[in-house]
């Protein structure tokens, strides 16, 4: 009990636990565990045969945190920055350190611009985004979507209805934009046609 000196007794002794649970206590000594002490200076043990690694060629100006002294010798080359989102990303890296909320918020905003733009661009390709296959939603039918939720006290059921909103957002926005665009085109085509009719009759 917390109000007196002794610790509450455990239901099982160490010997009982050792008998019940395979491996109980094999790492009992806190000093004899792989990540103890936290820092163990042993540069020879990693397999590295360099003091500082050779530098990987930089094939495009690689964005980097302004808290780094220089571009790290090795880096990932997935998805170079492109378009508007790319410009936002480069700005976030150049202008704001990791300590600044702006750095991360601009990157998150760039992510949204990137995914929206990519969805729209995909409709001009042979492989447009497909909300059914890409969300894996079909597994609701094949993997007991209903039974996995019905009658279960799952805390995540409260917010799962928000998922479709987040998923469908880009398509809804895209639909609205496409509709507005179409209307404008139709209007200007209509106006053009009306004008040409006027010219013919005059």
């Amino acid at each position, binding site marked *: 009990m917390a109000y007196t000196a002794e610790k509450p007794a*455990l239901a099982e002794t*160490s010997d009982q*636990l050792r008998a*019940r649970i*395979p*491996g109980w206590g*094999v*790492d009992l000594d*806190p000093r004899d*565990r*792989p990540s103890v002490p*936290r820092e*163990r200076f042993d*540069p020879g043990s*990693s*397999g*590295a*045969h360099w003091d500082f*690694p*050779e530098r990987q060629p930089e094939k495009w100006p690689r*964005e980097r945190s302004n*808290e780094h002294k220089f571009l*790290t*010798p*090795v*880096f*990932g080359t*997935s*998805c170079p920055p492109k378009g508007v*989102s790319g410009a936002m*990303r480069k700005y976030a890296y150049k202008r704001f350190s*990791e300590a600044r*909320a702006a750095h991360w918020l601009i*990157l*998150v905003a*760039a*992510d949204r611009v*990137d*995914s929206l733009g*990519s*969805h729209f661009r995909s409709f001009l390709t042979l492989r447009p*985004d497909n909300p059914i*296959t*890409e*969300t*894996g939603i079909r*597994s*609701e039918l*094949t*993997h007991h*979507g209903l039974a996995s939720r019905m009658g279960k*006290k799952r*805390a*995540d059921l*409260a*917010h799962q209805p*928000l998922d479709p909103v*987040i*998923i469908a957002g*880009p398509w809804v926005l895209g639909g609205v934009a496409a509709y507005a665009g179409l209307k404008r085109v139709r209007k200007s085509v209509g106006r053009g046609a009306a004008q040409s009719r006027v010219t013919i009759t005059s």
Partner: protein
Amino acid sequence: MQAMVYRGPYKIRVENKDIPPIEHPNDAIVRVTMGAICGSDLHLYHGMIPDTRVGHTFGHEFIGVVEEVGSSVQNLKRGDRVMVPFNVFCGSCFFCARGLYSNCHNVNPNATAVGGIYGYSHTCGGYDGGQAEFVRVPFADVGPTIIPDWMDDEDAVLLTDACPTGYFGAQLGDIVEGDVVVVFGAGPVGLFAAKSAWLMGAGRVIVIDHLEYRLEKARTFAHAETYNFTEYDDIVVHMKKITDHLGADVAIDAVGAEADGNFLQHVAGAKFKLQGGSPVALNWAIDSVRKGATVSVVGAYGPIFSAVKFGDAVNKGLTLRMNQCPVKRQWPRLFEHVRNGYLKPSDIVTHRIPLEHIAEGYHIFSAKLDGCIKPLIVPNAA
């Protein structure tokens, strides 16, 4: 090659990509034979990690066969069967020299606050990951290890992240004999943390979640005492009640940024990305331990601030310990434990999904359908 590709929040598909080339003399190209989806991948999938670009291939848990090596690689050759830790690390920087492989300073230009991770956004270095047929593995002489003959592939793939992370989480708790340990989260990481707590001599191991089927696994696989937080008005009070009002000696947060249990926190963090994560489980951990306790955090949080109850942590004199797991540092000991039968990582695998159906795999794991605990990904060619 076929590769999983991110298309925006909750949307992924399989695309044909070029096989990655060698970009550095110590690179290897590995043909993936088995991969997995991690709880961390869900944070990416839900669009929570800044600088996750459309076209990026996820996947930081994988094993495979060496296809090609760069000119300076000495320890691996074509044809070797390897397991690759989820950390990309150089082995020689200030941090690697001290065994902090998850905090390497030479592999992530995008951020100094986090090391390199395969397939984990540009915030973690912009490396394409292993949910693909091939993957570039930097520092081939440092990260990968040849899979021992006696080890099963499914055990090997779980030893690249989930199992060592749970084990590391238990170490961060500084458990001593007889400690009462409470683990938040009965996902793969929480299950391994609970199991590992016993190895370190815990006297009582409690696991909290809201998914009954996972709590069932915590009872059978991790021999734990379990509580479903939805059955209690206030889980913190319940934790006090069952510990004679002292509180646990150690808590482990194996939930991270998408914790449930508080609608506002969850929606602000996980859905609208207004904070770096929903720290519900972390706050419960802080409040349910005793004064002077240790809280170990292996659940992942984004780089944006989160509403953590720091005052309680200060006033209770808590020790907060946390990190990404330096996987390779755990391997020699974990290999022994697996060989001795103390740990059977593959016991938690529930689904084996072909790479071409990975979109369904993500949905099943994310929406917790079909009793899913750990889904493996198997490329067609494997």
